């Protein structure tokens, strides 16, 4: 039992950052914008969150700082792709390079420092109890991530604003012609995506390893991007998919530590991407509406033409 609980806690730790970043990216893509800069945004969030926590001694302020940092960085991307109609793929990749560089630059002053880990806020009787820690032993960011899955799902499906956002992503010209500001909606979606990626990054620098190290997200932003596709742009599937990826990552480590070598380790490392390709193939072969990419994904909005 203790063994299973400890394994689940590891899986939650592996899952939460990609869930947060993936959820943000899902909203961005639902609005018709493809932002490949998630990895860079996570790094900006990681250093922003860490930096603010170092100065304020308050991890809540740190998480807020991570969200603001991620959102601000994503707005640079937004200006380029929305205002100047630059290529979204190229700009997103540039954002990753920018985020990596700027976080390293800021991080020079924070290398070698630590903060207290942003752990559970429940009383130790629950948070450290051998059994109850399964439910109460996590950082508040973990619960926030799961709650946000349902908030975003409800927002997209049940609210008027969510309907507008989806309309902008499916058919921007129609949304524009009936009076909605496509650009404004996309700005907000991109900023939300940046904030969520930022918080995902802060999970690394405040919770898992409360320190700053250059490139500490080590490619999780790319897994988050794959996750959105794997989930078919649906929030429920995103939650399931994130945990599925988390379980795969943990399985690799357990298989190695327990001495199993029936599959090469590269197989495990490739699994999230391989599963994404499989999911994409299934989605496209079914051709179900709503489970495929937003129609305007990646296309610049040019109402005059």
């Amino acid at each position, binding site marked *: 039992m203790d*063994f299973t609980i*400890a*394994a689940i*806690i*590891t899986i939650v*730790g*592996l899952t939460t*950052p990609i869930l947060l970043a993936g959820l943000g990216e899902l909203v961005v893509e639902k609005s018709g914008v493809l932002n490949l800069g998630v990895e860079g945004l996570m790094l900006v969030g990681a250093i922003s969150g860490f930096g603010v926590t170092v100065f304020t001694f308050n991890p809540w302020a740190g998480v807020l700082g991570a969200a603001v940092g991620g959102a601000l960085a994503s707005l640079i991307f937004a200006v380029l792709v929305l205002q100047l109609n630059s290529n979204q793929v190229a700009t997103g990749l540039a954002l990753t390079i920018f985020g990596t560089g700027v976080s*390293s630059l800021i*991080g*020079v002053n924070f*290398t*070698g*420092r*630590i903060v207290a*880990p942003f*752990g559970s806020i429940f009383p130790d009787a629950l948070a450290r109890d051998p059994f109850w820690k399964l439910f109460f032993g996590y950082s508040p960011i973990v619960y926030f991530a799961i709650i946000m899955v349902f908030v975003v799902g409800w927002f997209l499906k049940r609210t008027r604003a969510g309907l507008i956002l989806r309309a902008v992503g499916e058919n921007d010209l129609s949304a524009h012609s009936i009076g909605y500001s496509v650009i404004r909606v996309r700005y907000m979606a991109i900023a939300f995506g940046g904030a969520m990626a930022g918080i995902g990054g802060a999970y*690394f620098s405040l919770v*898992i*390893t*409360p*320190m*700053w*190290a*250059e*490139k*500490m*997200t*080590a*490619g*999780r932003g790319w897994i988050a991007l794959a996750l959105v596709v794997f989930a078919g742009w649906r929030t429920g599937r995103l939650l399931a998919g994130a945990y599925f990826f988390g379980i795969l*990552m*943990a399985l690799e*480590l*357990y*298989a*190695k*530590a*327990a*001495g*199993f*070598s029936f599959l090469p*380790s*590269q197989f495990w*490392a490739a699994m999230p991407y391989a599963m994404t390709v499989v999911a994409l193939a299934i989605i496209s072969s079914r051709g179900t509406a709503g489970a495929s990419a937003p129609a305007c994904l990646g296309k610049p909005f040019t109402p005059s033409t």
Partner: protein
Amino acid sequence: MTISRRNLLKGAAAAPLASMALPAFAQDKIKIGFIFLGPVGDYGWTWAHNKGREAVEAALGDKVETIYTENVAEDASAEAAIRDLCNAGCKLVFTTSYGYMDQTIKVAAEFPDVKFEHCTGFKRADNVSTYNSKFHEGRAVLGTIAGKMSKSGTLGYLGSFKVPEVVLGVNAFALAAQKQNPAATVKLVMIDSWFDPPKEAAATETLVNLGCDVVTTHTDSPAALQILEQKGLFGFGQGADMSTFAPTAHLTAIEDIWGPYYVARAQAIVDGTWASADTWDGMKEGTVVISPYNAAIPADVAALADGVQAGYKDGTYDIFTGPIFDQDGVERVKAGEVMALADLAVIDWFVKGVESAS
């Protein structure tokens, strides 16, 4: 002046002239290049190599200047990165990871006038030296401490790749621990990366969950130590003293001290006496240093660890002294025999008591 396309073009035409003038000033100083695996801020492997680079600047700053490229992957892209340093005018290039071996040899053939120093590899040429550090001597000290400090007798080893340096580390750690506790076993996880803090953290949690109460790392971030700190267990720093990251969990660390070697080789370039060589220094020469012990280490354990260090310094101790059995129980080194350096450099088997997937 308004910015027109024509003005911009003028500026662009002027720029190369300005930059052409620069090398004339810089030519007095010999350029030395470094290829780094991770970021210089990793606080581990690359951080230590960068300290060595800084030592060169400090010692020979009036005669040489150093440049470096960080985050160079151990694939074909390394070739381009090394070539770039040669084209930038470097006379000496340090390629500081095993995975740059073939790329270094290849580029070295294209630039016969440039000297190369490849870290931890075994392929040499007239203008390519290899150098290494006997990290496994440090691992023997850590294993001695771990064997004594572990209550469960199950030790964790967080590895990167199955390369000789790591295999030596695992074996030295396991053999030294077994000298203190013959029943000690080492669980090994290779994470297929030198630097991936989230994965290092998750792998450490996994090892702990499988019963390890002391975990040593052969990856470059302090992530594992931070996890051990939170769990109230013990571990060791890698490449540098990492005690600031985990004041309680950090028992000691292996510090990589590259400065003296880098300064000596840079001096040889300045003097024109550089020659291809294979250098494998260790504790005796001061390239492997053990950090101050944590107060949690009892005096008798500290004395044992000091004994190993002293033995390496005066040549009376070698952890690779037989009898040594491999994982399948086959005797690889007979009683009383000591493994030769040439055999250590290409070792690819684990000793008895190491539990691994490969």
